[in-house]
């Protein structure tokens, strides 16, 4: 094999690296290695002069391989690849040694750090010799988008893509869109009526010629890759002919199950029929028949009062589920959250004491179109004289969720204001600490404090019943005192949790979840919208708990990402992918189940596994699992990795 001409560049990163690693010494030592024709250190390799230095050396000294010892390749590998390409060298003939995150930032021991940096650079030099030029691939894009979830963030994303003139399939599991926000009464900090700001958007979705809305539907299968997904959707029957139903609600009034089934939209505070309109502003405003409670569907016995009542003859009990298949270029995931079930914290008596309710139930209660027509009432119908709000139920708690649910402090403050506004009861807020960040939030908190709400710093420990009244027990950490406060009503502000089917959705779409269970973004700071799967984006609370402005912003961001793909008509696919040597493959199928991206399939004729390189992300899991060594990942093959290890240990 002919000798390579390798250039090694050691970055000081100001004092980030050079403050700990002796960069000059590393450079000097590396310069002594065979095939290293130039070794230089420089203050900022990523700067223009730094990149120029590499380009000049490639041109003048004829370098055919480059090693940059600097920060994480996640930061600047693309930068230096471009530099190589600028000088006519394939970008994959570069290897980076991470001597910042892996060395200078993790120790203060200068001698050891210099030693480790040198080892890593030696490994990089040995590895880069085996690098091969790789060409990036481009594939055409289907210019449609699928939005999964019709809450506020999904609605926002769908509208934005549609407004740009592109087709959107909006898929919603429930029978209506609007999500949790549709249940709210007022929104903080401006106390805008939630319905007033949301329903116009819902109506826009229903009317947009570019949006095809599928309610009562779920995604059951996703195939393909960025730009070219095929999504299979199952639409459940609602036993109502959409075209005929006028949304009059006559079927609901006639249904013999009337006022017998807890109404989900009212969080169980009211009762509905088996045939019903989900809520007055529902989009689509069509009746639905609940197949779990309809007597005809469950027991095959009913007077069919609804059919008789329906003037439009819209009821059709012969409907079956429908399977749809959509070709889309990108997918926006906006599946939202589940509310923490307060019964899991039995100390608060939720489900035991009728006047202990959760935040969403309170929202419904204060909503003018809710079960109490906007009156805050106790179970016996009277107004409460004192109300407690307990923060962080299920959040910031080692036993349930360690994270802060972000919206509860502000919604608790809002609850306090609404109580004051509706019935002038005394309000006690039990908080760990107040988190009222955000535009206008602190001001709103101050306003509510001035309204005479009692803020008690201490997590509510228990809700008990004493002499017919509820008592909240807590340690007031400001007074340093144990307190028992008698109240009429307790509102538990519960955590926002990943949806119960999050794992199923993650598996169907081939995306990852973070430790807290929410869907994982590709970079928590710099790429919070993209998943680790190209072409699948996140919006709203399915990524992490967030309030309405943040959900809307992320919905728009996801739409922008999706439009960026559509606009260019082509997507670049990372050329680092796995390939199967069919001569070596024994068809054992170990790899197939390992692939998160479902890029591997068994060829039924040859009985060999095959990789769809466009779907493959080059993660290497299959190559590690492949027992016969038939799978190779380009740019990370065994020879390269072993050479790197040898270099490091040399």
């Amino acid at each position, binding site marked *: 094999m002919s000798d390579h001409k390798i250039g090694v560049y050691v970055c000081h990163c100001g004092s980030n690296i050079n403050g700990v690693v002796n960069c000059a010494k590393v450079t000097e030592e590396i310069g002594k290695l065979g095939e290293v024709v130039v070794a230089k250190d420089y203050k900022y390799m990523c700067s223009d002069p730094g990149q120029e230095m590499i380009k000049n050396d490639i041109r003048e000294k004829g370098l055919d391989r480059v090693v940059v010892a600097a920060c994480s390749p996640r930061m600047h590998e693309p930068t230096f690849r471009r530099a190589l390409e600028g000088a006519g060298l394939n970008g994959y003939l570069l290897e980076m040694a991470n001597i910042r995150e892996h060395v200078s930032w993790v120790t203060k021991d200068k001698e050891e750090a210099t030693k480790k940096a040198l080892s890593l650079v030696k490994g990089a030099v040995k590895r880069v010799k085996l690098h091969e030029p790789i060409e990036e691939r481009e594939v055409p894009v289907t210019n449609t988008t699928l939005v999964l979830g019709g809450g506020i963030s999904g609605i926002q994303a769908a509208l934005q893509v549609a407004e740009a003139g592109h087709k959107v399939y909006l898929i919603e599991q429930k029978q209506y869109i609007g999500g949790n926000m549709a249940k709210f009464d007022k929104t903080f900090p401006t106390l805008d009526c939630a319905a007033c700001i949301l329903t116009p958007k819902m109506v826009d979705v229903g009317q947009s010629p570019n949006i095809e809305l599928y309610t009562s539907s779920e995604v059951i299968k996703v195939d393909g890759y960025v730009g070219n997904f095929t999504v299979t959707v199952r639409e459940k029957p609602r036993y109502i002919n959409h075209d005929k139903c006028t949304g009059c609600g006559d079927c609901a009034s006639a249904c013999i199950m009337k006022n017998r089934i807890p109404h989900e939209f009212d969080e169980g505070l009211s009762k509905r029929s088996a045939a019903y309109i989900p809520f007055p502003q529902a989009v689509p405003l069509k009746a639905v028949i609940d197949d779990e409670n309809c007597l005809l569907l469950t027991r095959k016995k009913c007077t069919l009062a609804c059919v008789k009542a329906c003037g439009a003859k819209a009821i059709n009990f012969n409907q079956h589920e429908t399977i749809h298949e959509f070709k889309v270029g990108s997918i926006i995931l906006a599946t939202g959250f589940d509310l923490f079930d307060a019964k899991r914290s039995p100390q608060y008596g939720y489900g035991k004491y009728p006047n202990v309710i959760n935040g969403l139930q309170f929202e419904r209660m204060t909503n003018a179109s809710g079960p109490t027509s906007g009156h805050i009432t106790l179970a016996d119908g009277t107004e409460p004289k004192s109300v407690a709000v307990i923060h962080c139920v299920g959040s910031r708690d080692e036993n349930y969720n360690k994270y802060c649910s972000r919206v509860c402090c502000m919604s608790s403050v809002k609850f306090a204001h609404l109580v004051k506004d509706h019935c002038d009861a005394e309000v006690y807020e039990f908080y760990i600490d107040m988190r009222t960040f955000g535009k206008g939030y602190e001001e709103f908190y101050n306003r509510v404090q001035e309204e005479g709400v009692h803020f008690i710093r201490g997590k509510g420990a228990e809700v008990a019943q004493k002499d017919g009244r509820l008592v909240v027990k807590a340690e007031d950490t400001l007074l340093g005192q144990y307190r028992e406060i008698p109240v009429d009503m307790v509102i538990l502000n519960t955590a926002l949790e990943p949806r119960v089917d999050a794992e199923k959705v993650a598996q169907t779409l081939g995306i990852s979840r973070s430790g807290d269970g929410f869907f994982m973004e590709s970079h928590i700071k710099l790429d919070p919208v993209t998943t680790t799967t190209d072409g699948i984006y996140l919006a709203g609370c399915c990524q992490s708990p967030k309030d309405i402005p943040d959900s809307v912003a992320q919905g728009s961001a996801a739409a922008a990402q999706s439009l960026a793909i559509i606009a260019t008509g082509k997507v670049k696919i990372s050329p680092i992918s796995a390939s199967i040597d069919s*001569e070596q493959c024994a068809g054992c199928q170990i790899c197939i189940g390992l692939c998160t991206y479902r890029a591997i399939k068994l060829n039924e004729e040859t009985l060999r596994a095959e990789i769809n390189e466009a779907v493959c992300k080059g993660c290497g899991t299959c190559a590690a699992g492949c027992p016969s060594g038939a799978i190779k990942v380009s740019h990370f093959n065994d020879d390269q990795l072993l050479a790197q290890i040898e270099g490091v240990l040399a």
Partner: protein
Amino acid sequence: MAPKLQLAIYWAAACGGCDVAILDTDEKILDIAEAADIVLWPIAMDFKYEDIYKMEPGSIDVCLFNGAIRTSEQEEIAKALRARSKFMIAFGACAAWGGIPGLANLTNREEIFNTVYQETATTINEEDIRPDTNYPGPEGELHLPRIYDRVWSLDQVVNVDYYVPGCPPTPETIWTAILAIVTGNLPPKGTTIAGIKSLCDTCEREKTEKKITQFKRPFEIIADPKKCLLEQGLICCGPVTRDGCGHRCTNNNMPCRGCYGPSEKVSDQGAKLLNAIASIMDVKDEKSAQELAATWEDPAGTVYRFSLAKSLIYDYKKGGE
């Protein structure tokens, strides 16, 4: 008539099965005798060390060397035979990758001596006598070979031209190797004379996507003879093991033990198999992974049953004599 092949057969750290396997070629042994003069075969005929040292360099055409290297004597003879042989062949799993004796590398000489000369229930050794390299006997000082701290494969000690795998190699494999030598129809140096792909490739058992929910040992179940053994929870080394044995174990409903060594593209048989098995364990988190893994008896001895001496990890971890 062409001059007869000068053939040497030697054993080092081995059980003797490889020598028996040569006899197992049945009537073909006569063909071997026809084609070759056996110039050295300690298990069958009487030879002294001097007989080897008297031979000229290159005077042996082919040396079939079985057994691993774990004593100074074995190393010395291996080197002496190498110097006198045109082709040095690592014959059988022990010579090729350390074989069963290579599992001694999971421990060391000291621990092995403690077990053998002190700790076993039937041992009484009050004076704590251990093997020694020198012993002053009445007829003068006696010398014994030194036992090494670790076991080596043949190619870690001398240059090896070809590998004939198996524990022991099957008669068919032996005959293929002999035929290649006799006819001069030789593959490139370093070739393992057997299949190339893994055993799964020619295994006719029905394979599907794999998930192991429970590890089983062969005596615990009667395996379904049609289905992949791995899918039934038996640790079958087939996926990482070189084809060429004729499926003797799997045809008898027993999982492959891996004696044909790593298949062509596999550099570390045990690591590869461990990776593959870890990949198909049906677990959802670390805890369930630990629980399932705990039901696997002797993972190291299973995945490295024949190749520990050649494992990458071992070489980086420890030096030794």
